[in-house]
Each structure stands twice: as structure tokens, then as C-alpha cells.
């Protein structure tokens, strides 16, 4: 049995970049769009308060069946396979990369330049901020170049963050309110943030942007068709040519039925893991290494950033829980100017209650009960703790890679992906001085506030993963051009995170979305304007 679904554009995946591409193309072009999602529908907004309460009370997942049990990957960062993807439980933090991120080879002699500049991406950053709704504070222009203002005023700094900003600036560092895709005013038909502290994993009121809002609007307007519980297993190239003719999929409820998606253009929007995975799975005799892989770089150059995270004890009276997921950010060390040695990182500050919680045993080791615990706790809260963290740039190695894992199969018999992140040799050499430099900065900041660093440690994993189908001007060393179009297949686009050349040193989602919107501009060119 075979079912065929035809459209002008077939988008594979329904995460945040897919939603942005669909919204942009559907709004500007006469094109029928089908979106294919392996997972289920997400939890409706109306149910999120109750789900959140279960999360708060019992730690339960608020997102229900948001993954497919046997469909995962060794080394994957997170699992959220449902309508909306990972951005259903993202933190909504939306800084831009800095201009230097796109030119590290030219400026510092390390890593790789992107085929586009910050200036090329600026209008798409703006578009991303306007479509999702981003609240932000203009930083010093030299550190925070922008073509237009943020669409929303910044999230106000809490009493805690005001104190912490004064502390941070005593060290001579400029801090601003972290740009966030959370409503500081009503926006996009969604309400103002009410700072109930559970942005991740779940915003119960919809003040934080998530892709389900876009999908709901597009479906309501009959602009797209969204097929859920349907796993695309491979892309097929037309027999005489290089264009992708169709995608072969399986419906999870009807595994005996083959589903074919036929379209003029295909958009792979499965993120850093499932996008290269699909291209590798699509190997055939003419393309034995998978589609779009003439360069042999599909699945290569996985990238991200590592961090050093610290806690600083300060003589400040802070109140935990005022708006604990919001933070301060500085771009000062992302734009360092000429460097003797390449070290770049962002810098963030949060309120924290680390080390200041209630405890069972006192300093002498005796068990406390009754009034003793509260008195002990109260006695330790006269001063405060700040959490500080710096994401630093990790330069990816070619062999930082995703491969097919023959030892692990999906329920349909396809090999699952296997991920192995690896620093380049130059990045390995830079790691220690980078982390030492960040720790020294934390110490300097602590001293400026008459405080002390309680702890500072580096996480082993690379956060905000990307890459695997990196863009470039040279088809011999990259998978797509700067628009996300596969060098080898003119009607195949890979959008968002997988096309990144590097992970920068700030949260990646806004950059992924801006890149996807830039791709959408090119994808739409093949269709008549509305």
C-alpha cells in the first residue's frame, strides 16, 4: 500500500526553523506547503498550567509523549520530537552572534570564516526577532550593532539583577538585559510575561514564543498541511538528474503503508542531528555516501560552545525567585579587538541561591529540627550569591561528526545516529588558557564586589549544538551554499543549525532562525508572489 502526498514545498521537521520558513514562504508566495513531523502533536496551551504544576510538584515531564523510544542517538543533547521540536522547552534566550563569529579566520587566524557576514545576516536577525517577538535592550553600539531597534522593550531588570549589574559594572564591564523571546508587553496575540520562573521547561501562559503558535495560526488559515507521526526515512533523487523527487516515509500507526511526499522543493529542518542523519540514510548507488555529500562533509564539523560556570558570594541581600531565569549579558569579550591569543566568550550573570538553601545538618554536623533549620537558613541569607557563566568558542574538527550507528536501529530498522563532538587541534591548545582566563575574570569580578568565588567548573559537553551540513562557498568543503541550498541538489535546502560553520559563543537559536529565514527568502524565489 502506498500513499502519495503532493505539494510545492515539503518541509521535513516542525521545529522552530521549520515554523519560520513555513510562515515566511506561506505569507509571501503562492505555494502549497506540507510539513512532516515524526512526533505527536504537542500539549495544547490550555493544558499547560496543569502540566506545569505536575512538573513543580513531582518533576514530571510536562510535554507528554515528546519522543520516540527507540529513535535516539548516542551523544545527542536532548530529546524533543513533537510538533514544535526542541523549542517547546527552550529557554527563550535570543542573543545574536557577534560580527567576529563570522570571520574568525580572517581576524584571528583560527577556525573557519563563514560565507556570509554579520551584516548579511542583520536583516534576518531583525526579521527573526520580529516574527518570534524578542524583548531586548540596546547595548553599547560598538558591542551590539543593529540595523533597527528590538521589537519589544527589554524585560525589566529585577531588584536582584539591578544590584548585580551595579556589581558587574564595578569591574568595568557593560551589562544589559538578556534579549529574550518572552513578551515584555503583549505581542503576537500572546500576553506579557508574568515571571513565574518555569520558562524552561514550560511557559504556562504563552508569553514565551514556541513554534506551536506559528503552526496553529498557519493551520487555522489553511496555509499548510501538517502530517504528524510520520517518519521520513530517505530522500530519493530523480533517476536522470540531481533533483530530489520525493521523500519516503512511514506512518507510525500504519507501518505497512509507504508514504511518499512529492514536491518541487524539499526543506530539511531536522536540526543538527536528524538533518545529516536523513542525508546519510538516503544513500543509493549513485550517492553511496548519502545525498548532498560530494564533499564528504555531511555529518562533519559538528560544533557548539563549552562553558565555565561559577558561583560568587557577594555582600548583597538578594531574594531568590524574583525572575530567576532572566539574566544579564555582556558582549565585551565577544568583541575583544586584536588578541595576542584567541580567547572569546560571552558573560552572563543570574541571581542564585546556590549554597544558601535550607540544610539538615549544621556546620558541626548535628541534625537540626524544628526552629533550628529555619534559623540556620535565615542566618545564611543576609548576603547573596551570583551565578556567572561564560560560553566560549570551540573550533570544530572535521571529525567532530555524526555517523550512522549500525548497532542501534530505529523501530523501522534504520541505523540511529551516533554523535562524537571533537575540538580541533587549535581549539584543544586554546582550551586551558581560555578557561584559566575566564576563571581569572570571575575572581577579578568577585574582588570588585568584595566577594569570593565559591566554585567554577567547566562543562564537558558542547552546548547549543550545530553543524553537520555546514555552509560554504566551495562545494568541495561544504554541504550547502550560504542560502542553505545543497550544492549537489538544486531543490534541496537544509536550514538552520546544521548549516552553521561554528557555534559562536552565545545561545544559538536566534542565529539558527535568522539563517532559516535567509534560506526561506531563496526557497520562495521559485514560486509566484502572493
Amino acid at each position, binding site marked *: 500500500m502506498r500513499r502519495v502526498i503532493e505539494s510545492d514545498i515539503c518541509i521535513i521537521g516542525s521545529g522552530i526553523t521549520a515554523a519560520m520558513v513555513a510562515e515566511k514562504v506561506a505569507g509571501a508566495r503562492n505555494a502549497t506547503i506540507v510539513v512532516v513531523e515524526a512526533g505527536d502533536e504537542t500539549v495544547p496551551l490550555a493544558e499547560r498550567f496543569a502540566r506545569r504544576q505536575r512538573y513543580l510538584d513531582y518533576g514530571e515531564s510536562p510535554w507528554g509523549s515528546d519522543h520516540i523510544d527507540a529513535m535516539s542517538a548516542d551523544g545527542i543533547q536532548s530529546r524533543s520530537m513533537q510538533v514544535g521540536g526542541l523549542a517547546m522547552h527552550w529557554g527563550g534566550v535570543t542573543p545574536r552572534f557577534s560580527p567576529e563569529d563570522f570571520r574568525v579566520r580572517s581576524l584571528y587566524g583560527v577556525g573557519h570564516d563563514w560565507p556570509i557576514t554579520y551584516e548579511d545576516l542583520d536583516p534576518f536577525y531583525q526579521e527573526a526577532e520580529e516574527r518570534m517577538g524578542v524583548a531586548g535592550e540596546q547595548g553599547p553600539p560598538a558591542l551590539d550593532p543593529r540595523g533597527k531597534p528590538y521589537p519589544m522593550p527589554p524585560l525589566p531588570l529585577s531588584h536582584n539583577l539591578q544590584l548585580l549589574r551595579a556589581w558587574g559594572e564595578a569591574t568595568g564591564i557593560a551589562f544589559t538585559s538578556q534579549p529574550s523571546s518572552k513578551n515584555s508587553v503583549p505581542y503576537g496575540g500572546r500576553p506579557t510575561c508574568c515571571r513565574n520562573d518555569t520558562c524552561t521547561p514550560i511557559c504556562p501562559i504563552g508569553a514565551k514564543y514556541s513554534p506551536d503558535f506559528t503552526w496553529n495560526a498557519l493551520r487555522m488559515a489553511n496555509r499548510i498541511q501538517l502530517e504528524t507521526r510520520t517518519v521520513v526515512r530517505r530522500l530519493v533523487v530523480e533517476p536522470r538528474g540531481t533533483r530530489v523527487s520525493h521523500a519516503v516515509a512511514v506512518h507510525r500507526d500504519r507501518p505497512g503503508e509507504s508514504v511518499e511526499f512529492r514536491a518541487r522543493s524539499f526543506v530539511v529542518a531536522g536540526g543538527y542531528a536528524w538533518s545529516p542523519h536523513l542525508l546519510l540514510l538516503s544513500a543509493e548507488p549513485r550517492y553511496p555516501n548519502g545525498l548532498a555529500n560530494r564533499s564528504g562533509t555531511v555529518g562533519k564539523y559538528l560544533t557548539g560552545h563549552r562553558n565555565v560556570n561559577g558561583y560568587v558570594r557577594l555582600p548583597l541581600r538578594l531574594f*531568590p*525567585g524574583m525572575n530567576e531565569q532572566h539574566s544579564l549579558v555582556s558582549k565585551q569579550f565577544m568583541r575583544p579587538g586584536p588578541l595576542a591569543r584567541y580567547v572569546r566568550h560571552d558573560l552572563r550573570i543570574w541571581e542564585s541561591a546556590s549554597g544558601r538553601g535550607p540544610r539538615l545538618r549544621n556546620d558541626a554536623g548535628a541534625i537540626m529540627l524544628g526552629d533550628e533549620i529555619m534559623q540556620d537558613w535565615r542566618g545564611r541569607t543576609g548576603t547573596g550569591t551570583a551565578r556567572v557563566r561564560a560560553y566560549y568558542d570551540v573550533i570544530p574538527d572535521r571529525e567532530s561528526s555524526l555517523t550512522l550507528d549500525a548497532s542501534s536501529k530505529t523501530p523501522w530498522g534504520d541505523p540511529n545516529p551516533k554523535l562524537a563532538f571533537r575540538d580541533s587541534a587549535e581549539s584543544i591548545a586554546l582550551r586551558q588558557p581560555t578557561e584559566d582566563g575566564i576563571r581569572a575574570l570571575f575572581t577579578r569580578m568577585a574582588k570588585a564586589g568584595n566577594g569570593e568565588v565559591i566554585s567554577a567548573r567547566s562543562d564537558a559537553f558542547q552546548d547549543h549544538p550545530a553543524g553537520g551540513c555546514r555552509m560554504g562557498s566551495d562545494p568541495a568543503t561544504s554541504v550547502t551554499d550560504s542560502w542553505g541550498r545543497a550544492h549537489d541538489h538544486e531543490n534541496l535546502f537544509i536550514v538552520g543549525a546544521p548549516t552553521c560553520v561554528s557555534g559562536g559563543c552565545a545561545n544559538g537559536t536566534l542565529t539558527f532562525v535568522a539563517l532559516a529565514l535567509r534560506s526561506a527568502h531563496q526557497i520562495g524565489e521559485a514560486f509566484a508572489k502572493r
Partner: protein
Amino acid sequence: MASKVASDIGGGQYSDRAARAAPVVSVGAGWYVRASATILETAMPSTQPRQQPVESPLASELAPQPAGASSSRRTFLGWLAAVVPVSAGFRLPFGPALRRYERIDPALLRALAVTILPSELGVDGVERTAGAFEKWVAGYRAGAELNHGYGSDRIRTTAADPSIRWALQLRTLDSDARSAHRSGFASITGEQRRAIVRSQLAEDGATALPGDIAGAGHVALALLASFYASPAATDLCYEAAIARNACRPLAAVTEPPAPLRRGGGRS
């Protein structure tokens, strides 16, 4: 009497004859514990009169024992409590007559709450906290999927229902009180109650308030963790109406929280 209790505990698979042979006792489907004669002896009846202002049926049926027997009684109840958390959906092999021992005794819970929570909560605050704990227990779902946050692909589920273990531990507090003071846990002085709780926590090797309430090894830790994790506890500590986790006006975030009015709310 002893035979009845023993046979209830053994789910019908236990007998006096088997006891003499240091039997294998079934305590759950497919899961067995070899019980020692010492443990079994603690289930022998006593002729001591009942002295329990707080109703403690297990103690009265298994116990009233002479002073000095508390250690072995604790061993028996502690043993029961220890074998409980083996799997989701676990039930003690009690017959219907003893099924109530699986449930948290409200009066004992409140006696514990008064003992270990800060006095500034007052009667109403203690009652609210105990009630919230009971509600938490009633709403617990073993085997539910836990939040799988960013940074891990592991899918984990909630543990077995801890409330049976906690219910038995409450009974143990009561039986220890009877052994040491010839009165139930609720009838002895606060200092005496705290001494018993301290002793049990020390014996269990408790070191910290658990972040995961269900993972609390002792009912006292669970109750403390439940309270101290609450926004109300934070407000009480900071003497400020922070109202963590509540929906609050965004604009008000710029000001320090208002001083806490006793009894809750802003002054």
C-alpha cells in the same frame, strides 16, 4: 495472634512451621527476602496494656512490649520499611486487616510536623503543611516520565510509591515512643519527639534535605523537603513576599519584595 500477623505479613505463604526454618518470605511478586528469627520474634504478642493517645494499630497489635524491646521492634518495622521501595506499584503483602498500615496516619503525621517544622508556622501553618504533604502523597504517580531537560537524552521515570515506607516509619516513631516513654509519639514532649526523630535520622545516615521528595529515605526528611522546597518557606526565611513560581506583575520585579505579613501575604 502471632500466627495471624505473621501470616498476613507473609501474604499467606508464611507459617509457624516455616518460621522455625528461617523462612523465605514473599514481600512482592517475584521478590523474596530471607527473614531472620530475630525479626520474626518481634512480632510475638505481648500482654502490656495499650497506651496510645494517637491510635497506632500496628503498635498495639504487634507491640506493647517491655522496655528494652524497642531496638528489636525498630528492627522489625525498619525492616518492613526498608523492603518497600522495590518497584512501581508495589504493595506490602498485608491482608485486608493490616492494609491500613500502608496509609499515612494523619494524626502521627501532624505530630511529626509539629516536631520538625518551625514553630513560627503556627497551628494553621503546620496544618497547611501537613495537608499539602498528604495531597502530594495522594497525587504521586509511580512510573511517570520525569522531565528530561536540555543536556541529556536519558528518559527517567518516577520511583515506586514511597508512602508505604513512610507510613511504616511513622508507626515506628510511635512504637519507639511507647517503648521509651510508655506514651504514643503525639503524647510525649517536643524534646522527646525530636530525640526520637534525630535518633532515627542518624540511624538512617541522613545527611541532607533531599531535592527529590520521593527519594527521601525517611518520612521526616520527606516532610521537611516538602516544606522547605515550597515558595512559602522561602518567603518565611527571607521574611518577604517573593511568591516564587507564582504569576506576578512583570513591572513589580524592579522593586524589592514587600515584607511578609505574618500569616502570609504582603504587609
